[in-house]
């Protein structure tokens, strides 16, 4: 997958995950990595961009005597996920077309 596209897809994966409940960096990497290759260092710019774009907000919670930063999905982030899903049907048709024509 080319990098630009992967970044976009990763953003959606992070947002999708946060729909269930707020989460923190370490857990996000662990929860997503079975599905798409992601490292701590690729995640940071994505979280930063989502935060800057008001797709997620952050809050800190104490854990073991230190503060842990949690990310919570915002309406704008939910909208992004909806948009992605609405395009899914169209994408499926395109994939099917490409597959058929490649036989």
């Amino acid at each position, binding site marked *: 997958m080319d990098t630009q596209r992967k970044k976009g897809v990763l953003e959606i994966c992070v947002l999708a995950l946060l729909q269930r409940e707020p989460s923190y960096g370490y857990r996000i990497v662990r929860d997503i990595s079975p599905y798409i290759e992601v490292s*701590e*260092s690729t995640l*940071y710019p994505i979280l*930063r961009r989502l935060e800057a774009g008001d797709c997620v907000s952050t809050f800190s919670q104490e854990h*073991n005597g230190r503060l842990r930063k949690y990310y919570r999905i915002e309406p704008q982030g939910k909208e992004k996920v909806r948009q992605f899903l609405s395009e899914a049907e169209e994408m499926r048709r395109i994939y099917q077309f490409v597959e058929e024509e490649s036989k």
Partner: protein
Amino acid sequence: MNQEEFLQQLARELAPLNEEERGRVIDYYREMICDGIENGEDEQKMIESFGKPYDIAAQILAESRSTVQAAIPSEEENTYTAKNPVQSIIIDARQIALEIRPVPSGPVQVHFMPAENDRVSISEQDGIFTFRQTVLYAIFHWHIFFSREQHKIVLDIPESFHGALSASTSNARIGASGLGKLSHVRLESSNGQISLSNFECGTLNAKTSNGAVIIHNLYGSNCTVQTSNGRISAESCTFPDGLTLRTCNSGMFVQSVSSDQYDFASSNGSIRGTVFGDMREYAVRSHTSNGSSTLPPELVYPDQKKSMNVHTSNARIDIRFLQQST
């Protein structure tokens, strides 16, 4: 690399960012490491998996919309002053001489008059004061090369400062004298001389190439000096845990130095001088080719905790032990 080293290096690479943005990145990685360790991960392996600080920073800097911020000179012009307590000082410069000098009191300060193509950024984070000067485009013009000799960065360190200092530049000299007591000192240049005198530090690392290294009247636990094509001169220096001097294609001279672990190496250059100690206590190994030596090739007895290793080629070794007068 351990956690602190990693975070320090990362902070350094992120110097062009403003303090808040840099803090976010550092907090992020610190939290990652803490969570990883709590989950039984190996600190070292985890840090390795992050990638090199340089690469991480490059990615973040590419993403960040904030452009390189020219630091705002504070108080008087061309003086950059630390506003918070400082534990570590990092100077990262190019093509410019560094002078490090003591001041009786006051904050850590850098005096520097930027030239047209210099960019400067300073940051303070977790007690680390970073001053970074970069040259937008390198001009290799003899006239400028020589005029830049006058052009230098001066770092003022108050006597009350006992932290770490790391300074690097290129194609220019580094000088430090009369500082108080520092913990770790790391100085690096290339094609420039390093001369250090009259201070105390835990560990000292000085590295250059094509330039001499002169150390005089220094105290600490461990000292490593490295150059190539430049001579090394060490006088009245005491580093019990180790005194390591390395060069090649140039000579080395030591006088009245003291250590339990001497390690001198050159090639095509002589190694001579006097060291303090009782030779019988040292496991001695020496080698040269095409030259005479005052030391035995190997004279080692069991239970000797002290050692002396001297190696060169095509030149002589003339090292003599002196009993230290008390």
